[in-house]
């Protein structure tokens, strides 16, 4: 009898819960999320390593002070509120109460100061540049951190995400050699998930942080990141149900339509707004005839980017209009026209110093799509009467060739980090053109007026002033054509539709699974 009553009660509970749970908005706790990761990350200590796969896993373990939505508006994370002084010089953060690291130690303002001022200044090259604007970091009490800047630095509020400013436990790292600290193998942060196990070559396992400071979160019990080196096998892994989420770039583009059309499959290209991946071809303006602006303009008009978008990228992404991505702050859409126009290209080429030289194109060694793209560009150039050849390279060789400026045109794509001062200016500043790095001003663009504008715009306190300044900069750069801008890349995240909210911020799967839950059928 007792059993019967129990059963009835359970059935009633189910009947009540059923219709509610079926709706998108009622998160259910529990479940395992299986995600593809590629390539295998070199390590998970995000303060030391910031490559894509590391960020993807470590973004669940480590947190920063803020989160950013798809419009890049900051929202609370480890900081529950913040204030920016009128003059743009003082940033005061109030931290969440009762936050602990995964080892149980409390997280306080001392950890913030240590992370930013000591650890990241030492080991994080991007952060190091941003910190040149910081005068001091003060911690009046355990839950308050005050950043004092030397001058107003507009993008400052945009750097508090886990890939840029992860919060690192002071009690573990202080006074040690960061790079060789044993704790790097068992990362400890404040995030919604804890590191459990890493079987190299097979998987990384994270488990729910039961002591997480947000009530009821995270919803998932555990996450497995599957290391599958072959792109076709990654598609197979999804098709056979072994994994539920294929982050952007997991499978070859030509497989996207087939996988997308599978039952119970959803796709989104959201979650890349913060990175704003923009692809272009570096132009080696040290070489003839590319030092001639008419030749560069001719190439710009000759390259059929609509075709590349539809034929190679499944119509995801957008045709770029200049150096700034449309999801980045202060993007100007009305820059000079650089659309596909082979007739115009031929005219420009006729007026230029082009003399039948062969242009060497260096493709990006990131899989089939990029190889085909380089071939398409070669064809586009042939159509306006330019000779071109493709030079092969693997990833390491590509790095070397770009660093040595050993190419004429070279494919690349870079992240913009939400603000022109963070991810765009580095490509165009005149004094950032030294050979030796594939990410600085590789095309050796020199325009002192633009340099001055960049430097001023970064230090303006008022966003309206910055907007006007960046509009002028974009107009000028687009008419100088130092690079051939291609596409704002659309990296689709493919997932089973019963996985809810896999992408909830501008950083996508890189800090996404705090709010993710699985609807049970």
């Amino acid at each position, binding site marked *: 009898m007792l059993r019967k009553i129990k059963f009835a009660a359970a059935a009633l509970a189910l009947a009540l819960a059923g219709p509610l749970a079926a709706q998108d908005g009622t998160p259910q706790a529990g479940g395992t999320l299986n995600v593809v990761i590629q390539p295998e990350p070199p390590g998970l200590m995000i303060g030391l390593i910031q490559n894509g796969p590391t960020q993807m896993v470590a973004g669940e373990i480590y947190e920063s002070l803020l989160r950013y939505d798809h419009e890049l508006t900051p929202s609370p994370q480890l900081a529950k509120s913040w204030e920016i002084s009128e003059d743009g010089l003082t940033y005061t953060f109030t931290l969440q109460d009762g936050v602990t690291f995964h080892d149980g130690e409390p997280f306080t303002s001392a950890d913030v100061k240590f992370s930013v001022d000591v650890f990241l200044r030492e080991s994080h090259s991007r952060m190091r540049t941003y910190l040149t604007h910081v005068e001091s970091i003060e911690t009046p009490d355990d839950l308050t951190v005050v950043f004092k800047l030397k001058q107003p630095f507009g993008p400052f509020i945009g750097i508090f995400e886990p890939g840029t400013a992860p919060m690192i436990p002071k009690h573990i790292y202080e006074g040690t050699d960061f790079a060789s600290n044993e704790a790097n193998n068992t990362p400890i942060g404040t995030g919604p998930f804890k590191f459990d196990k890493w079987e190299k070559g097979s998987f990384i396992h994270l488990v729910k942080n039961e002591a997480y400071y947000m009530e009821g979160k995270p919803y998932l019990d555990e996450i497995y990141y599957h290391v599958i080196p072959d792109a076709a096998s990654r598609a197979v892994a999804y098709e056979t149900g*072994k994994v539920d989420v294929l982050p952007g770039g997991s499978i070859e583009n030509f497989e996207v339509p087939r996988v997308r059309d599978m039952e119970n499959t959803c796709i989104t290209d959201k979650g890349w707004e913060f990175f704003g991946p923009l692809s272009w071809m570096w132009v080696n303006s040290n070489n003839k005839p590319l030092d001639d602006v008419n030749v560069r303009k001719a190439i710009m008009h000759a390259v059929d980017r609509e075709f590349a978008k539809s034929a190679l990228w499944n119509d995801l992404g957008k045709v770029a209009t200049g150096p700034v991505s449309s999801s980045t702050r202060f993007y100007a859409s009305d820059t000079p026209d650089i659309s596909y126009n082979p007739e115009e290209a031929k005219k420009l080429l006729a007026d230029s110093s082009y003399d039948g030289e062969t242009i060497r194109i260096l493709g990006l060694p990131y899989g089939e799509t990029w190889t085909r793209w380089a071939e398409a560009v070669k064809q586009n150039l042939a159509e306006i009467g330019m000779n071109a050849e493709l030079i092969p390279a693997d990833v390491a060789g590509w790095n070397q060739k770009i660093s040595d400026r050993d190419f004429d045109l070279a494919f690349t794509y870079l992240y913009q980090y939400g603000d022109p001062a963070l991810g765009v200016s580095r490509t165009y500043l005149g004094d950032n053109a030294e050979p030796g790095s594939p990410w600085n001003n590789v095309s050796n663009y020199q325009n002192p007026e633009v340099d001055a504008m960049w430097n001023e715009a970064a230090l303006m306190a008022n966003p309206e002033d910055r907007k006007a300044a960046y509009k002028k900069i974009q107009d000028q750069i687009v008419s100088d054509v130092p690079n051939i801008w291609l596409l704002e890349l659309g990296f689709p995240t493919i997932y089973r539709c019963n996985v809810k909210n896999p992408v909830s911020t501008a950083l996508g799967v890189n800090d996404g699974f705090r709010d993710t839950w699985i609807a049970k059928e």
Partner: protein
Amino acid sequence: MTRFILGRLVKAVFILLAILVFNFFLIHAAPGDPAAVMAGEAGAADAKFLADLRARFGLDQPLYVQLWIYLKGAVQMDLGYSFRQQMPVAELIGDRLPATLLLTGVAFVLSLVLGVIAGVAASARQGSWGDTIISTLALLFYATPLFWVALMAALVFSVWLGWLPGFGYSTIGAGYTGMAHVMDVAKHLVLPASTLGLFFMAIYMRMTRASMLEVSRLDFVKTARAKGLKRSVIQRRHILRNALLPVITLAGLQAGQIFGGAILTETVFAWPGIGRLMFEAINQRDYNVILGVFYISAAMVLLFNLITDVVYVIIDPRIRLTA
């Protein structure tokens, strides 16, 4: 026999050292270094970051110093440290080697046994329809690229039929132990091992068949027939025993080569072995790992060749060993 083996081992040490030195220069001749690759993956780095990395990896030292340090370690079985994977290379390889040995071992035995059986069967009835089918299949397996076979196998048996797992070493998160774990690994092993084995099976089959036919025309076989021995006895004792010698030579050579095939198979089937480790290490210019894997696989090849020679004597006592 002991003297022979000792002599060969001494030679092997020198060959190994020569291989190491050669590989060292070969790797360093390729453009790009691990620091640049690591910085490249992060998408940004300043000069200080790169210099720090290079100093930590010892890449700021002259090449001959780096070689000397490496050789000194290698002689003491210290294969150095992988800065990329943050682990000693010996430990990395030690973790991955069993998976590769399991895969290549099973593939090797499978291909040798099935190859020889098929070869004998085909030669026994030369020109029959059975012979034609076996020979055609062998030619097909021999000519088809390994990665295509691998992908098709995964597509058919994993995606369409759902019989076998298409990738990985064991079911992740299942937590099997004991016999259940063994069965789980065995299931995962079927596709990669048979893919890898097919090509070699084809070779052994063709070799066995040709060799059997050749030996069967020799005088001592005619004598045996004239004596009125049973057909099966002649096949087994007279022909097969002699026909196997070239097959074993080839198998010995290919026991090393099978590692090469394992790179592809391991990559397609996400098998966590050293073939894949090496493939990734080459892409990432992880010098110590590349050299370590070369070192271990060269040692394996030398060992297999030695074993082949010993097996030779056991099968045909007329052969004398000289170091």
